[in-house]
């Protein structure tokens, strides 16, 4: 039983910390994204959790957590989450015998790790309310392979990616757990239309419309059994996302303290008011609570513990609520300054709000806790 980082993890943390400090917070622009991808590839981060045979580092969920906490601390937005999610799905699809054929997946992974190919994953639909089993996008068997029709929403980096991973229903009804498949396609595939936009926290997103998109049989990486694979991949992404949240929360806490140390009201530093001090303590405690559940969830994932899912769901509840609390309080303690778009505080806050929503908000995961415990 220990919670210490290994020396490699400490090195990873320190180098990420340095890089993030040099970079500054990401601006909202696709150019910035592209240059980040190249940096991340060079630093070996894109392949952090991927196996060495694909050019990756073979790191664990704990390593990913260490990196992501630092990315979150500096509000360095994507591209990492997209790579992590796609990587996990592709790795799982390799296990599926059919998909491994021709080494398509492993060469794609190698290209992702090197930054030569960018990839995005489209799992959710607009009316799914975080339920992955809700897949009304349909893939019908046809002569050439499959014909896909439907719409996928909230696709991170959807318009920037060369390749897309898409879930669609090959069997069953809208909400059935089985009958969901995973497809790989090129963004230039005829019938695929992209509607790009930004999320309110500045991430590039897109809505994908599939209109009689015809794919070869080999494009189906996982047939009918994709749901548990998608769920498992998202479990890992939640650890990474929660680590980003913790980094952002601590930056918010300490930058709010710094700001309030400098400001006077009624002849006193704002930090001298006891009500403000106790608020900061509540914020600090919230960070510590997130850290405890984050470490536990990451370790349990590495150890494939039977309660790994439960602890991860608990973590996402805590991250969603603590993140909103930290954000709201930081804005309040900054006063009108906190309400402006320019300050980092507002951007970190919006990032935390978005993190609550991504991959299921606090209430969604609270219901999972009820089911799992």
């Amino acid at each position, binding site marked *: 039983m220990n919670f210490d980082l290994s020396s490699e993890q400490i090195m990873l943390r320190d180098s990420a910390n340095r890089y993030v400090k040099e970079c500054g917070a990401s601006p909202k622009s696709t150019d910035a994204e592209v240059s980040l991808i190249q940096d991340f590839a060079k630093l070996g981060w894109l392949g952090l959790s991927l196996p060495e045979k694909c050019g990756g580092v073979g790191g664990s969920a704990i390593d990913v957590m260490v990196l992501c906490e630092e990315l979150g601390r500096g509000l360095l937005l994507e591209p990492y989450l997209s790579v992590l999610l796609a990587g996990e799905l592709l790795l799982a699809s390799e296990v599926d015998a059919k998909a491994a054929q021709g080494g398509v997946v492993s060469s794609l992974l190698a290209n992702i790790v090197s930054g030569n190919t960018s990839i995005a994953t489209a799992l959710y639909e607009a009316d799914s309310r975080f339920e992955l089993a809700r897949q009304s996008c349909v893939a019908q068997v046809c002569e050439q392979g499959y014909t896909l029709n439907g719409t996928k929403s909230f696709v991170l980096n959807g318009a920037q990616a060369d390749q897309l991973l898409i879930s669609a229903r090959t069997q069953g009804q809208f909400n059935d757990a089985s009958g969901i498949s995973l497809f790989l396609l090129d963004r230039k595939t005829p019938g695929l239309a992209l509607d790009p936009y930004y999320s309110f926290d500045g991430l590039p997103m897109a809505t994908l419309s599939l209109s009689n998109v015809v794919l070869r049989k080999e494009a189906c990486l996982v047939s009918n059994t994709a749901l548990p694979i998608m769920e498992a991949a998202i479990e890992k992404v939640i650890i990474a996302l929660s680590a980003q949240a913790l980094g952002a929360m601590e930056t918010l806490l300490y930058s709010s303290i710094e700001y309030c140390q400098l400001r006077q009201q*009624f002849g006193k530093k704002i930090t001298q008011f006891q009500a403000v001090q106790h608020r900061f303590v509540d914020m600090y405690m919230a960070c510590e609570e997130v850290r405890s559940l984050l470490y536990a969830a990451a370790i349990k994932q590495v150890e494939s513990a039977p309660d790994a899912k439960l602890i991860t769901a608990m973590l996402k509840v805590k991250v969603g609520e603590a993140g909103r609390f930290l954000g709201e309080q930081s804005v309040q303690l900054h006063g009108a300054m906190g*309400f*402006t778009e320019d300050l980092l505080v507002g951007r970190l806050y919006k990032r935390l709000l978005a993190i609550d*929503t*991504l991959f299921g*908000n606090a209430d969604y995961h609270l219901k999972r806790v009820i089911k799992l415990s």
Partner: protein
Amino acid sequence: MDLNFSAEDELFRLQVRDYFKNDYPKDIIAKVSAGKSMVKADYQRSEQALAKKGWLAVNWPKEHGGPGWSVVQRYIFDEELEIAGALNVIPMGLLYFGPVLYTFGSEAQRERWLPGILNSTTFWAQGYSEPGAGSDLASLTCRADRQGDEYCINGSKIWTSYAHFADWIFCLVRTDPASTRHDGISFICVDIRSPGVEVIPIRSIDGEHHLNRVEFNNVRVPIENRIGDEGKGWHYAQYLLGHERTSYAHVGARKAELALIKNAARTAGVGGSSLLKDPLFASKLARTEIAVKTLEYTTLRILSATQVGAAPGNESSILKILATECAQAVSTLMLELAGADGLTEKAVSLPLSERQGLSGAMCTEKYLFDRAQTIYGGTTEIQKNVIAKQVLGLRS
């Protein structure tokens, strides 16, 4: 005790409702409900429509061009305006400056400035807050030095809502450089187009432009632009605060939002099912409905006391806390309603929008915008200090 409004007041309510239904600009209501950014022309058209009816300067007495309504009539009017989804007036000239002007201004000043406010041709901004002063207004440092028949103003004002629409700005400035705290502050009106005035936009976390910083660099203002006596500005500004007891309530707006939320929730569940059947959402909604009802009856209790002159004067702090937290509770529920739809920027129209006139982006924007509620007009923390001291008699 009774909760019924008088027959007269009920008749008045019907007239107001009828007006907003039939005579108020429909396109403005449509634009408000679509969550579009409002431009100056929208405000002006809305206010001039109200002015035409004599219903613009709702808190002014008849002698100065107001409708001379009772506090109850004004409450009913505000509620109906918000339930109808009409545009709230910009309060700077109408609610804040006007009463100072007709109470403390000279005859000449009244003649000069009241008409422009009453017909919405002149827009005003409020220059109180300063960078570094926050809610502690008494520490302000923007100075007006007397030079002959003029003041020369130097300094900064900040968080000036709608200064980018304004023709004039009324400011609290320090005219006695030796003074500290509340004394030595004067109330001066400045033509915002004067040389040396610069209005710098500040973008808010909801992505909109509501706020500004206003810089004064050797701005020369004739002394006849000062309201009342030199050095008494603080007291003029304070006088009005006690009279604006229920302006934060916005009960009508909260009711309208709850109705929107319930309507949208009916199809916002998985696959278009009803989110109202989700017990966690339903219980959050129920708690929010309790909060709105609590706000409504608290506001009515204060109105009732005001009617008979029994309001002890601390209601504005109590109501400020209750009303702003209620507003935040409602827009937090909107965020919950939006779910993943709330991730998108304003430009994007997604299902919640297509179905029910409440897009995810509008929900997020409203939630973010409402964070300002517990900050402006004195933070919640400051209101609590006031209640602790003035209501509960606790000294620090």
